[in-house]
């Protein structure tokens, strides 16, 4: 079990990801004459250590998904830098960018939209092995079956279509697909929000196992404070595209400095009734 909780000083040595002054503005849809500017991200800066989990919590419209997509290089920010393992991903050539991309993998929220309905789940997990040409085809098949084991799925599911799997199982396939190219960092955008409590627990356990066994760092994006507290070493609170608070999980959850964090914490319906039934 890597030690958790103490906010190891983010010495540049083991700093895996550094996001500096990231800003992004979107224009709402509709005809040109009625478009409105929406500031998704406003000068956001965060850091992630190797093998550490940074929880990013924010309500809808806080820009947390946009942040995730910028780190993955799927969305181009208007300004600011995303530095992965010392390299600014914006300035990289195609070959260098692809090698960085291989080490940063996504896990998505919607189990029904994250897997191609026409591809068998085995082929989806194999996709990065094929495109990054890792090992021989035989190696790749073995690796896929090994990944199914690691995420707690029966290997002979590999030949099935996503349609015949439950939400929890599809989420496990999504995680296996992310692990295929042996990433150093996983960007998980609301990975358990679409799941029932009982299934949610299994997937959260899987995330914690991965971090302990593989030393994979992750950025865990969610609106659910209970979930974020459970898996994160450090937490960043996002409100309307601005990081209002960052810190170790205990500090943010027990001694929040920002009013918004406090209102957020106060609003969580804790699954335990108030001491006196008729308060």
């Amino acid at each position: 079990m890597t030690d958790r909780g103490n906010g190891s000083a983010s010495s540049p040595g083991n700093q895996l990801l550094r996001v500096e002054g990231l800003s992004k503005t979107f224009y709402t849809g509709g005809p040109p004459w009625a478009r409105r500017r929406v500031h998704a991200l406003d000068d956001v800066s965060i850091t992630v250590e190797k093998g550490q989990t940074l929880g990013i919590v924010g309500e809808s419209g806080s820009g947390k998904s946009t942040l995730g997509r910028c780190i993955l290089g799927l969305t181009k920010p208007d300004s600011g830098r995303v530095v992965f393992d010392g390299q600014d991903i914006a300035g990289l050539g195609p070959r260098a960018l692809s090698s960085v991309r291989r080490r940063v993998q996504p896990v998505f929220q919607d189990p029904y939209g994250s897997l191609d309905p026409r591809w068998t789940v085995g082929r989806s997990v194999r996709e990065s092995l094929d495109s990054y040409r890792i090992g021989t085809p035989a190696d790749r098949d073995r690796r896929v079956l090994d990944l199914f084991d690691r995420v707690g799925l029966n290997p002979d599911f590999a030949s099935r279509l996503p349609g015949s799997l439950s939400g929890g199982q599809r989420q496990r396939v999504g995680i296996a697909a992310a692990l295929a190219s042996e990433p150093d960092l996983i960007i998980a955008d609301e990975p358990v929000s679409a799941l029932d409590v009982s299934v949610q627990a299994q997937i959260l356990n899987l995330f914690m196992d991965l971090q302990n066994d593989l030393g994979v760092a992750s950025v865990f994006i969610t609106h659910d404070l209970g979930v974020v507290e459970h898996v994160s070493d450090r937490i960043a609170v996002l409100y309307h595209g601005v990081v209002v608070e960052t810190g170790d999980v205990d500090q943010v959850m027990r001694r929040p400095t920002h009013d918004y964090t406090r209102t957020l914490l106060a609003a969580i319906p804790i699954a335990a009734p108030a001491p006196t039934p008729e308060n």
Partner: protein
Amino acid sequence: MTTASDSVLDFTDVSVAFRSDGPTASAPAVDGVSLSLRRGEIFGIVGESGSGKSTLANTVLGLLPSSATVRGHVRVNDRDVLGLSESDLRALRGDEVAMIFQDASASLDPTWPVGDQIAETIRAHRAIGRRAAREQAIALMTEVGIPDAASRYGDAPHRLSGGMRQRIVIAAALANNPQLLIADEPATALDVTIQAQILQLIDRLRRDHGTTVLLITHDLGVVAQVCDRVGVMYAGRLLEVGTAHELFARPTHPYTRALLAASPNRVARGTRLPVVPAQWSVESLHESEAVAEAEAAQ
């Protein structure tokens, strides 16, 4: 058992099965549920997806699709609604019993001004003029906390925020001062901060008007904070009923215990969450359903 008079809603051995066109007759969505709600209480039904909680709620107003067959008795103020004609049922809906749904923005007609959607409900059950209905609608909008209600009356829904739209939906539902309000996941689609406000609003309106509330949700936290009594449903069956306090302090049924243990914000950080035993977990329920569907589709 509570005497009939002071109970607003009574389910007696209610079962609901859907006629499936597939080879296998699908398992009943609701399987022999008996439950009665006391006047003025907030009763919460908690359960995961596929537990049948929404199906049960929909039997009260006869909103189930034609492929559903309902057995047992559902009494509202001692009158069994299952045998009611369509016109009697229509008279009941929105007057004696009101129901609100999860996604507020989807519950409002996008082309109608929000105020009219409240006034429409009033005039569907009260013989009053357009102007009087408008006044009452504006009063209701103010009561549910819409600032400057008169000027917002004519706004189309897309001009209001999610929280405001849910308040309009609640105002429309409570327009004719119903005795029973069924709220099917009323705040799940909203952000946590707004969710808390909506739940407090429902609780306040309940106390002010003595309305009995049946709250359907999958969120244990919501049930703990708001409900007087709680029922846990799994695979169409009502496993356990108790006061919120009893249920959370001393859950009797293993599924309830597992569910409580599995919810993240109750367990010490960093430790593994105890996993809901396989035969209880929704996974197994889902898997059999998904696999059956997949085979049929092959």
